[in-house]
């Protein structure tokens, strides 16, 4: 039992967990016919229940999971995979139907209309009643958390943001607060709102499909599942005191130390590469950083326009295309920064603490 726990502890390290999850997502999309079928669901979800039940016996895991405020996240652990699986299964079945020429599931019933009263209203009433039952049950069983009275002098370690912002707090490990806390959330909101104006693909409007909208779905799922939900789960369960990483079965020991050996890009370039001291003038010192960042935001759109995204460029038109690529680059910057941090301990690409401007 201990060895399994240790294996899981090591497996759930952020670098491994996120890479595995991304691989799992893309592989499952590729072999969606195999993954998203009832049998897989019948196997997968009970397995998760069993795994969760067994894990409950480990008191560290129990401690984290049964913390009152973590209950919704445990719920999300089940809900999000279920609904992703369900929508992908619908998409697969619809795609199979379009291939075989039969009308879509939704198409069959689009024509006939039913009276709202009683069908819709009645079912809504039942849904309301059921949901109230769920809520009241949940409220009775689990009391709302109330810790000791607020004390400005005592900073709890770890002090976490509310659970739905833990994704942002996790981003703080890799980016400075002005990026992770303000610019990226802004871009997420604007990006989400801009999706309909960027996605000009007419197909897939009003029914589950994957084949016809594979690109949009994969981007959305990657952004939502991996970069938001997974980070929330990681931030909730796997981040302990001093924001160090702790495996699900690891005791949250405040004295645990992680070697802070991250180095800026300017260090790498001037000290490690050229072996000379870091120049005093900020601009010169960070010139490398500026070059990399500008290059990142200017070169790929040009290159992609001529290569992979050639099709997009044509039917999106330059304005929409550049916005889309800029947003994609911003979204991709997070995983890239993560990889750089895991592999090369890279802290800042541009590091100007004097003006609080670090990327």
């Amino acid at each position, binding site marked *: 039992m201990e060895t399994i726990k240790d294996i899981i502890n090591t497996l759930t390290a952020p670098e491994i967990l996120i890479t595995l999850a991304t691989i799992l997502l893309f592989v499952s999309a590729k072999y969606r016919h195999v993954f998203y079928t009832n049998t897989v669901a019948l196997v997968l979800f009970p397995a998760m229940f069993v795994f969760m039940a067994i894990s409950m016996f480990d008191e560290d895991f129990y401690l984290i999971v049964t913390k009152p405020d973590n209950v919704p996240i445990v719920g999300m652990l089940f809900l999000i995979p279920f609904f992703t699986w369900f929508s992908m299964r619908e998409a697969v079945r619809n795609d199979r139907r379009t291939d075989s020429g039969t009308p879509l599931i939704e198409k069959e019933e689009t024509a006939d209309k039913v009276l709202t009263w009683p069908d819709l209203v009645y079912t809504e009433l039942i849904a309301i009643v059921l949901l109230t039952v769920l809520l009241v049950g949940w409220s009775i069983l689990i009391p709302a958390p109330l810790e000791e009275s607020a004390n400005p*002098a005592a900073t709890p370690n770890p002090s976490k943001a509310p659970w739905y912002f833990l994704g942002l707090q996790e981003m703080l490990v890799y980016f400075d607060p002005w990026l992770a806390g303000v610019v990226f959330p802004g871009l997420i909101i604007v990006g989400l709102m801009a999706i309909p104006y960027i996605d000009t693909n007419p197909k897939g409007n009003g029914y589950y499909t994957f084949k016809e909208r594979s690109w949009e779905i994969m981007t959305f799922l990657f952004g939502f599942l991996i970069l938001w939900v997974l980070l929330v789960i990681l931030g909730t369960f796997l981040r302990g005191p001093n924001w160090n990483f702790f495996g699900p079965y690891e005791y949250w020991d405040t004295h645990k130390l992680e070697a802070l050996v991250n180095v800026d890009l300017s260090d790498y370039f001037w000290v490690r590469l050229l072996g000379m001291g870091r120049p005093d003038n900020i601009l010169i010192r960070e010139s490398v950083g500026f070059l990399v960042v500008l290059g990142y935001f200017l070169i790929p759109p040009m290159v992609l326009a001529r290569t992979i995204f050639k099709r997009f460029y044509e039917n999106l038109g330059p304005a929409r295309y550049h916005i889309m690529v800029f947003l994609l680059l911003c979204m991709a910057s997070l995983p890239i920064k993560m990889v750089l941090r895991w592999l090369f301990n890279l802290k800042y690409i541009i590091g100007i603490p004097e003006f609080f401007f670090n990327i």
Partner: protein
Amino acid sequence: MSKVNPPLRAAKPGEPADAGRRSFFSWMSLAWVSFTASMLAAGTATARFMFPNVLFEPPLTFRAGRPEELQVGIVDERFKDSNQVWLVREGGGIYALSTTCTHLGCTPNWLSAEQKFKCPCHGSGFYITGINFEGPAPRPLERFAISLADDGQLVIDKGRKFQQEKGQWELPGAYLEF
């Protein structure tokens, strides 16, 4: 604001074609200009409303006497109880150390005999610079922003703290050359 579409019927004799429009134009534009101006004024006033003029918080910045009063190598404990800050003057300048132990928040004592800060709770030890060298404390003591006021007095701003492990002790404000 509805677009002004050209009048369909011919202007009545004696009435200059654009007379209506000019007087008509001036009133409407004046109306809308002053209306938007009032909305803007009201908007800025409401925004200003959200910034309180007076703070009821304990002051984070305080004045800590004159730099000349400090001797090199001697830890000044005058402000330890009132403001939870030690003032240390070394050859090149002065810095303000927080009295909160980075282990679990107790208040260490300065042992001048052994030239170190010793935390009574779990035995963490810190050099005079604040660097931790013994006991469970994971990080050195934090330093507060220190500057010189215009009347020559030291000003400590506990709102801005500098952590050595993040390399912030070299930032401007963490150390006062004197």
